[in-house]
């Protein structure tokens, strides 16, 4: 007989494996970084080599938010809303100096880093980062998903799977 917990764990592992090898990114591109994001998905650098080519512009269909560009205070509520609309589990890559910290715009209309309003998993430095830099950042996220465990030693997927089992009981 296969124990219930054994089955769930395996499925969670499978789910996690699928998640980290096939992000569906939502590019929240506002400025210069968005141009480098376009280069990253274009033929030369070709992000689809890693299984990340399903770029979705609807937050409901994506699990990776790539914030590429300066976020101003006027844009803040919009970004927050987009993040809230994404289904769990979800991850955020902050691409470029502006999204990470406001960059060299210490100014009256520029948010000093998107982590003022949403949680960030990976910060990619650069102004703008090269496509190699962005790819490296996303691959770091891939490792992070495998590595990240909560207090009970579960990954995000396992935690969710456990919660799901608990509900019908």
């Amino acid at each position, binding site marked *: 007989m296969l124990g219930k917990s054994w089955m769930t764990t395996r499925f969670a592992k499978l789910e996690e494996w699928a998640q980290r090898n096939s992000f569906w990114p939502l590019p*929240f*591109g*506002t*400025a*210069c970084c*968005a*141009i*480098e994001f*376009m*280069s990253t998905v*274009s*033929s*030369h650098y070709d992000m689809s080599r890693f299984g990340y080519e399903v770029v979705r*512009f609807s937050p409901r269909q994506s699990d990776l938010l790539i914030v590429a*560009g*300066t976020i*101003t*205070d*006027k*844009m*803040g*509520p*919009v*970004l*927050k*809303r*987009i993040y809230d609309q994404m289904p769990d589990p979800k991850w955020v890559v902050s691409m470029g100096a502006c999204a990470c910290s406001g960059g*060299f*715009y*210490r*100014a*009256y*209309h*520029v948010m000093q880093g998107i982590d003022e309003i949403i949680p960030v998993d990976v910060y990619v430095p650069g*102004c*703008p980062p*090269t496509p190699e830099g962005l790819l490296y950042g996303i691959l770091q996220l891939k490792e992070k998903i495998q590595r990240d465990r909560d207090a009970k030693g579960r990954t995000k997927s396992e935690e969710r799977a456990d919660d799901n089992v608990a509900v019908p009981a």
Partner: protein
Amino acid sequence: MDQPTWVVDREILLDLARDLRDGRETRFDLLLDLCGVDYPDRPEEDGGRFDAVYHLYSIPRAERLRLKVPLSESDPALPSLIPVWKAANWFEREAYEMFGLRFDGHPNLRRLLTHEAFKGYPLRKDYDAARRWILTEDQMYRPHPEPEESVEDEMFERMTINFGPSHPAMHGTFRVVATLDGEVITASEVEIGYLHRCFEKMSETHTWQQVIPYTDRLNYCSSFINNVAYCRTVERMLGVEVPPKAVWARTILSEFSRIMDHCVCNGSTLVDAGALTNFWYMFQPREEIYGLLESCFGARLTVAGCRIGGLLADLPPDFIERSRRIMEMIPPFVADVERLITKNRIWMDRSIGVSAISGEEAVNWGWTGPCLRASGVGYDVRRAHPYDLYDTVDWEVPVLSGGDIYDRYRVRMLEIEQSVRIIRQLLDRGMPEGPYIVDDPHVALPPKEKAYNEMESMIYHFKLIMDGIQVPAGERYLMSEGANGELGFYVISEGGGKPYRIKVRPPCFPIFSTFSRLIDGGSVSDMIVTLGGLNVIAGELER
């Protein structure tokens, strides 16, 4: 003085403007720019605290004129010039929110770039550059455009749709709210400012050299052109003569940047229309040009390749060879897109006659650049006021007359050909000998080995890093041909290491202010293609 300047009383401004536009001897048909300037210590009897500065241009006479209207702090009101030049609309809104100038008769004097929870006038000298205001979602502006003539029809319901700012066809930062009657847009409202990064305030808090990286991020699809435009302006104020090698390289790399910009514009317009293949085709030559820029300056996109007085670094030894190789690669890609698209029935149906505008109307709205040349007005700064090496090479200004999306696309394709032609001729001449930056220790950093080994050079190095270049007091407006049109820098110096005021004349700002006029009466799908065809770059539009 760089151009005639008239100080005008606000009482006569409107009449004077009308005469200047219509007079046979003046014919100032283009309002290039309007900005405010703040002099907090200027007494009332000298005019008061503010200046409103207008830059006018006459295309038929190739003449320029600057109008200054002094205004007091207690009553900073002046008449709106929208009845004379429609381009004044957004410029006046900007001057209102940045300085608090009041334009009487303006139909919609509302904040343009900053958000709804913002308080104060950020470009006034007493406003702290880092003072932020936080916007919450319930405070956000909700446009509700109403058609002028409402059609009473019980069969259909009118619908108001919001596009953007996070919408793929809105290029990330624009927002359009449209009221539809079926498929037809009956009224629309455009909201911008989602990428207002405070370029002008930042430039006032940095030294003259430190402004260069900020200029990169105006039109980030062709950063190098911005560098050149800014550095030329400051060089003119300093009276510095740039060495021939730097001028040569600036001309070549500006044209490469123009090719890149047009590739992005046409590539992404065609994606928006559903022709994805061309996006890949257009992006490949761009990748090669990035490689060239990276080999010169170490960065792909935001190159910061110019320095005041020359270039950042000497050109790599294989510069000519590498450029020639790219020159061989670009034409086949362009030819592929031409074959796929120029006679393509679907593309022609979607673009010919769509969002058309006449040359006369476009000028009144303040248009310049490829979009204006697609409407039959052949104004190009490189031809009308040649700079760098443009008057020494053989090239043409492509002008088409349709004024629609199709002709905007074709003008850009033709300009790519002309840029290739210019670059080829300059490469054939060979690289000029000599230094890449001016040999003047007050302007350019001394070479490292000198700074380390000679006392005098070390002091110059220290002074330049700590105090910056000292630019003599004065003001100057200097224009270059950006990828989108006339890119002007209006620079005021009070003497000293930092600019007193820098105003960019962003070419796509007046173009995008026309957007509602272009899309009203068309369908939603027309709107998408129109936006792509105008090549609005948010960094330059909102600065």
